[in-house]
């Protein structure tokens, strides 16, 4: 096929192609509306058969309700919770709800309806108020969403899907419901106010007339609401669907193998690409010998690609690479493994090691940093203290290592780009596709797939960019690029290595009179530069906090827990050390210091601590070799807006030969004004216990000769069933604010909890993670 292939020609070529799992979907001559008759389990947007009531809702004549989801399901339950927020207001039959991904292409072409742009009430602290997405610098690359595009914010990050989406999604459901009622009212010539809607049925009490949503949906689609600005949403005390435990709607297709992830996409005429990118970031291909593998079975060609344009990767510098294209992926992978490739690597990057980076952190943290808080007189506090406690903690670089390796299927023609991908940030991918190919964003179609884990993965790394750069050199041919696990560890950003130095002066009774906190992390590492817990949660009269940075060539980005994970490890570990230095119980010590503090959500924090302690049987005897540790987890407690507050008690055993077991976790978690799907919240808490257990016990990414060393699960271990806590108890308590979110920074306390339990049992205090690298034996 020539480079000048047009869409129409491509369609003609492949029109006859069909296979077992091949989607034969092109509709010749209808370039704008090519909609795949997707396999069962595919989740991407399709043009609706029935006219949509609004951009979120389509109702078929048989009452099937399609709800468009603008976030990506990656295990956090958004497929279900977003639908619940819409359907709470729509008042449809929940058993007939079918989520589908929203169209990122329409998001490029259509503006947000006026009625979605005004958020009433006092946001975070008003039960009737809305959330408001934060659009950051309001650029149009989609990094933080786009303030006025159809779906505004299509990112899936920062545990924000409910916080940012709830108001808009409830309003979308309410607007559709009102239009359905107006349609029925006009049909029957009665006032809409006399109608009642429930479970997709509209009834008129006076006349006994009855109809269904499906019967009036087409009329509703043609009936704009005259005053959409007057529509209001239900406050939590009127919820009937939200707040109930709902099984996740994507689960049935995930137990049969039907769910279509990006890796499962098959197209007519599709070729496969296996990739090798330079293992040292900033490096590129110097040369490669395709002739050496040209004759191998299935091999088509090799395609080189440069370091992705930093404009497409939020300024991060990844690597250049080369792909081998073949009829099947295994053929492509076999060939590229044998193809000689020479790299050119910046000398300064090629010498970097973890030890060097650690030295740089130590140097930086000892120098004057950026002072964020300076309250009271810290130096005077230290001078008069009865006791000084100092500790330095460190956390390693960490990969996300989601289970689905990076992949994307891309078809570029001269007038259109199609991308099949599981993606946490499709607006950014759309921007990248346009930037790389020159095709306008309005002609970029992203067919969203379920994603095999996220954890901050997309929107940070070059999975889409690699695939687009390759397919752009093979216009007219759909190319499915799939990374090996080892490549997946190259094509990603990392949670930055971090360090904290804490120093406290205690009075004669053991209470802190002065606290100095210094944190250091790679610049842009979302640690010190993200103002997560600059304010001390525990009361200290004099407090100074400074952040320090270093600069390395490893691309860093948002990983589950972001800066909070490291910060809470530092803070809660140090609280345990202070309590022990004071000879006081760590639970009561924390409690007293929270009680002395002047924080808006103080009562909620005390409630969390008390509830977790009570659930765990705090203070009751445990067998030798077993200990409990408590910690507070909160976000937003310093402000008077959204917040999430929890406390956990970890019961941990350590055998004499140093085997650690997290035996039991007791969790007290606030609900705010209300949780959307408490079942999903429980699952997220259970999952984050595993996540931070791995951070605490097993995982570390090290750097040697400028490249990442741990590049598969034999070197970057994932805990298994045998290490999972046998008991997880979760209880909720209501609070008077909206939650910030709970999908990424809960259970950070597993880190400090295991550390303090190890101390209690073995007498040894370890301050750098993971603990498994230390000698944990005792006698």
């Amino acid at each position, binding site marked *: 096929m020539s480079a000048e292939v047009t869409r129409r020609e491509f369609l003609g070529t492949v029109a006859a192609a069909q296979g077992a799992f091949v989607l034969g979907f092109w509709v010749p001559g209808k370039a704008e509306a090519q909609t795949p008759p997707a396999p069962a389990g595919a989740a991407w947007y399709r043009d609706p058969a029935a006219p949509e009531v609004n951009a979120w809702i389509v109702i078929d004549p048989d009452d099937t309700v399609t709800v468009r989801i603008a976030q990506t399901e990656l295990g956090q339950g958004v497929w279900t919770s977003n639908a619940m927020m819409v359907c709470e207001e729509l008042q449809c039959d929940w058993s007939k709800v079918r989520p589908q991904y929203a169209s990122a292409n329409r998001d490029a072409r259509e503006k947000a309806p006026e009625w979605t742009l005004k958020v009433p009430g006092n946001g975070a602290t008003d039960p009737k108020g809305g959330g408001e997405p934060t659009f950051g610098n309001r650029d149009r690359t989609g990094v933080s969403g786009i303030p006025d595009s159809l779906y505004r914010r299509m990112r899936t990050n920062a545990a924000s899907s409910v916080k940012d989406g709830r108001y808009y999604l409830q309003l979308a459901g309410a607007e559709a419901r009102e239009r359905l009622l107006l349609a029925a009212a006009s049909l029957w010539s009665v006032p809409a106010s006399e109608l009642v809607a429930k479970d997709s049925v509209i009834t008129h009490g006076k006349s006994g007339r009855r109809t269904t949503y499906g019967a009036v949906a087409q009329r509703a689609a043609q009936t704009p609401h005259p005053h959409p600005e007057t529509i209001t949403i239900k406050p939590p005390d009127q919820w009937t669907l939200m707040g109930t435990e709902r099984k996740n709607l994507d689960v049935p297709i995930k*137990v049969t193998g039907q769910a279509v992830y990006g890796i499962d996409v098959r197209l007519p005429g599709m070729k496969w690409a296996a990739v090798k990118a330079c293992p040292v970031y900033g490096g590129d291909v110097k040369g490669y010998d395709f002739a050496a593998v040209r004759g191998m079975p299935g091999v088509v060609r090799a395609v080189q690609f440069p370091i992705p344009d930093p404009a497409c990767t939020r300024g991060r510098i990844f690597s250049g690479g080369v792909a081998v294209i073949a009829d099947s992926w295994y053929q492509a992978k076999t060939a590229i493994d044998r193809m000689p490739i020479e790299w050119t690597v910046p000398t300064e990057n090629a010498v970097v090691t973890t030890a060097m980076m650690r030295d740089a952190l130590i140097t930086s943290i000892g120098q004057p940093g950026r002072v964020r808080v300076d309250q009271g007189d810290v130096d005077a506090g230290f001078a008069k203290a009865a006791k000084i406690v100092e500790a330095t903690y460190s956390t390693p670089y960490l990969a996300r290592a989601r289970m689905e390796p990076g992949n994307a299927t891309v078809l570029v023609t001269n007038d259109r780009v199609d991308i099949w991908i599981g993606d946490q940030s499709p607006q950014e991918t759309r921007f990248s596709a346009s930037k790389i190919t020159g095709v306008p964003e309005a002609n970029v179609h992203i067919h969203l797939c379920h994603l095999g884990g996220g954890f901050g993965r997309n929107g940070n790394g070059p999975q889409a960019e690699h695939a687009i750069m390759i397919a752009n050199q093979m216009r007219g041919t759909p190319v499915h690029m799939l990374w090996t696990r080892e490549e997946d560890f190259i094509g990603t950003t990392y949670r930055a290595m971090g360090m904290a130095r804490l120093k406290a002066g205690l009075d004669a009774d053991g209470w802190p009179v002065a606290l100095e906190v210094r944190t250091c992390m790679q610049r842009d590492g979302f640690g010190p530069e993200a103002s997560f817990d600059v304010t001390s949660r525990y009361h200290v009269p004099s407090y100074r906090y400074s952040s320090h940075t270093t600069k390395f060539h490893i691309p860093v980005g948002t990983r589950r827990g972001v800066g909070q994970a490291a910060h809470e490890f530092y803070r809660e570990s140090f609280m345990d050390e202070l309590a022990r230095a004071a000879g006081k119980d760590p639970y009561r010590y924390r409690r007293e210091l929270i009680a002395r503090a002047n924080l808006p959500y103080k009562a909620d924090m005390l409630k969390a601590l008390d509830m977790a302690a009570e659930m765990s049987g705090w203070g009751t005897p445990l067998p030798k070799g077993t200990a409990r540790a408590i910690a507070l987890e909160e976000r937003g407690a310093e402000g008077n807006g959204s917040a999430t507050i929890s406390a956990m008690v970890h019961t941990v055993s350590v055998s004499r030969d140093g085997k650690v077991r997290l035996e039991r976790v007791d969790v007290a978690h606030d609900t705010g004004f209300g949780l959307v799907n408490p079942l999903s919240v429980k*699952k997220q808490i259970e999952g984050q216990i595993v996540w931070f257990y791995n951070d605490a016990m097993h995982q570390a990414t090290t750097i040697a000769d400028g490249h990442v060393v741990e590049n598969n699960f034999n070197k970057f271990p994932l805990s298994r069933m*045998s290490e999972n806590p046998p008991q997880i108890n979760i209880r909720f308590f209501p609070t008077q604010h909206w939650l910030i979110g709970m999908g990424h920074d809960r259970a950070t306390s597993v880190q400090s909890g295991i550390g303090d339990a190890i101390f209690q049992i073995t007498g040894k205090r370890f301050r750098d993670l993971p603990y498994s690298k230390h000698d944990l034996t005792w006698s």
Partner: protein
Amino acid sequence: MAFDLTVNGTQHRVDADAQTPLLWVIRDHVGLTGTKFSCGIGQCGACTVHVDGRAVRSCSVPASTAIGKPVMTIEGVSPDGSHPIQMAWKELDAPQCGYCQSGMIMAALALLRDRPRPTDADIDARVTNACRCGTYHRVRQAIHLAAQLMGTRAGLKTGSHEQGDLT
């Protein structure tokens, strides 16, 4: 280089190098994509299928080892999710992202065949698949529930009639 492979009770003519890992033959030649690729070195178990009734990490065995033996993938457990192990998984709402769950279910099913009432220690020893979302808490409960449901069913009828269940 063509060979025959029996997957979920259906014989397939496969035109590929028989040294190709079984995973890629199942995904790309037989066309069943429920079995997942993740690590490629037999570490994580996302690619677990049954060969001759045993759980096998299909990314790390050549397809040739399965010639002449029945292969069962997640699609063969039941296409409609009605097998007790799938019912148990749904009852517990076990999956999160779901990517590892096909392999997890296949590993658990192989365990339940050998030990219809597994202990927690049996589960720890035999279900060693990795899940990055951390679904272990629910997966363990789902295995116990599946054991109950399968036990009940075994009491109701003798023998199994699952498609592809040739063990």
